[in-house]
């Protein structure tokens, strides 16, 4: 499980991510970037895939996100919110890609379903939850719940990143949970 909120040996994962970005800013080699990538890639990719629903686009955003981090780390001010900073970058890259699609009427195929099914390391139960998340939630609901689940960001931080009022974020978050629970309970009932 992606675990960006756990505490190991007194240093939280968030502090480690924060440290990586600071080290990149010090221009001390690519090791810090590599560590940052290994710690956060699944969260960034999962988020991008949930927005773009196309594996190639999500991969491009994943790639460009770390290049942006590499180039912009000097502008990062450590306030203990590295994920908020990184996911603002990832979000902007996703939005740019969507704008590009609109401009060129170039909506790529939604191939995420096959990709998820090919990932053997994920249990069927977990995959079904993610699939429901991608198919049944509105774009806003999906983005908010993915950010909350993958990054451990607070609702207030999500409100800042997504440029929505806190009350909207809270409301959409709750509705998303309710929808997902309803769907999963229904499926459990049908299976049982």
């Amino acid at each position, binding site marked *: *499980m*992606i*675990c960006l909120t756990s*505490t190991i*040996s*007194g240093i939280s994962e968030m502090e480690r991510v924060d440290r990586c970005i600071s080290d990149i800013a010090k221009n*001390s*080699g*690519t*090791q810090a*970037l*590599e560590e940052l*990538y*290994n710690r956060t*890639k*699944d*969260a*960034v*990719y*999962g988020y991008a*895939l949930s927005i773009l629903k196309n*594996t190639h686009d999500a*991969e491009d955003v*994943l*790639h460009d996100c*770390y*290049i942006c981090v*590499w180039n912009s780390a000097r502008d990062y001010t450590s306030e203990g919110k590295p994920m908020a900073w990184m996911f603002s970058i990832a979000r902007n890259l996703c939005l740019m890609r969507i704008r590009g699609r609109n401009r060129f009427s170039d909506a790529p195929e939604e191939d995420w379903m096959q990709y*998820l099914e090919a*990932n*053997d*390391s*994920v*249990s069927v*139960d*977990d*995959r079904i*939850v*993610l699939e429901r*998340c991608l198919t049944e939630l509105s774009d806003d609901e999906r983005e908010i*719940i*993915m950010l*909350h*689940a*993958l990054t451990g960001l*607070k*609702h*207030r931080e999500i409100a800042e990143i997504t440029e929505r009022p*806190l*009350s909207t974020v*809270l*409301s959409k*978050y*709750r509705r998303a*949970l*309710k929808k*997902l*629970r309803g769907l*999963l*309970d229904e499926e459990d009932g049908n299976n049982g």
Partner: protein
Amino acid sequence: MDKRRLENKISSACDGLAPDILASVLSDCKEKEGKVIMLNEKKKKASFVKYVAGIAAALAILLGGAMGVGAYTANKTVNSRIMLDVNPSIEISVNKNEKVLGVTPLNADAKKIVGTMDFSGSSLDVTLNALIGSMLRNGYISEAANSILVTVDSKDLATGQELQSRLMGEINSILESSKMTGAVLAQTVTEDSGIKQLAEQYAITEGKAKLINQIVSQNPIHTFEELAPLTINELNLLSESGNVKLENIASVGRASDSSYIGEAAAKSAAYKHAGVDETSVKLVKCVLDWEDGAMVYEIEFFTDDCEYDCDINAKTGAVVKYEKEQRRRQVIISTPENTQTPASNPATSYIGEAAAKSAALSHAGVSESSVKFVKCEFDYENGVAVYDIDFYSDGYEYDYHINATTGEVVKHSKETDDDYYRPSTAPADKPVAPVSKPETPANPPAEQPTETPTEKPASSGSQTSYISASDAKSVAMSHAGVSSVYDYDCELDYENGVAIYEISFDSGGYEYDYDINAVTGAVIRYEKDRD
């Protein structure tokens, strides 16, 4: 399914989902860094002009000499020494006008480069161009090995530093004009008898000797003798991967590793040799290092069962070292009566799960009745058998590692549990902050948000302590005038330096959002909306 479980499932479903594009990211980062240099057009143009001017000056001198006109008297005093290292190590001595007094090849490769060229009386720029050009033509500098070290030893430090900076730019421009992305290291040194002796002993420049000394002193697994034959590109890569901080050495560009198989291929070779699937592996480390006379990728990874340590030859991809160690990890199903000792260590006596839980509860100062255990696993930490215990109590999440033999607390953490929800409304062991009663429970609060706290802050001394999440929930429920809620959510956050609980819940067909001051328990803001 509760909120935490649902989110965990989403998170788990993304675990291992990202494609491995690290090599491409790193490569592009390097390329972009190179582009920064290449875009420095001003420098490039200035350098070209200087280059032409240098040649013109040299021709003028030759012409003057041929016509027998010049009363040119060369200053034979060495003002600066410029040392170049790639693998060829060359020393250039110049006078105060930067006219070359001599060029000394220090090793066999350098002799090949210098050949029969006589640079006496030429300008430093022209000499530098000729030497770097020769190294490019002879393949000592290429895209696969792009690092150059330039070292200046001048009579006065300021002149030396100015020269160092100028030469660094000059070399970069020469490489750019050959469509190369270089990695230039530059330093200014003063004479050091110890370094001089090492340099003479290993037929390298004092500059390279100084660089190796820095690497060895920060990474003592290497010896000077071992690193002396390495090229500057290899030394540059070693410093980067070994996180060596090169003091007083300016650096532009990144050392090329394109002659190596790359991390992705090295990892694949290691996984293949170990007979494991990439998806089941957690990578700990993958760095370049110098082992037994060859560059290797040092790769450490683990699976659920074993830890692996593997060295892959960076050029051939061959496995040169392989170690595998059992992780000796066993999960015990968490049931209250389960106190069996792990089967993998039948001879060792452990305190049992119940005693481990008691030790954790006792340390946390909470009673078993107020606790919800979520994990109790037997594990090894740094070779010590421990019980890894997670539990919730009164709005906090606890994580304990208890020594399985002695019962001692090895590690512990306590965090606010954002999702904690206890149906009981009576917090037992925490002081409750003043709670404002709802004006009329039958009359729900106005729908407009208010910025006015409903209660004055309770006393808060210099030592800040927060009310518990469940107390904050009681405040919100009491304010809303509701006795049962669902879809409850609570986060501790900071707004303008004030700690607040952000609480949201549904009740009676309405959605409620509250901000509760985490110190005083006062309602800072609330909203109520139709569900």
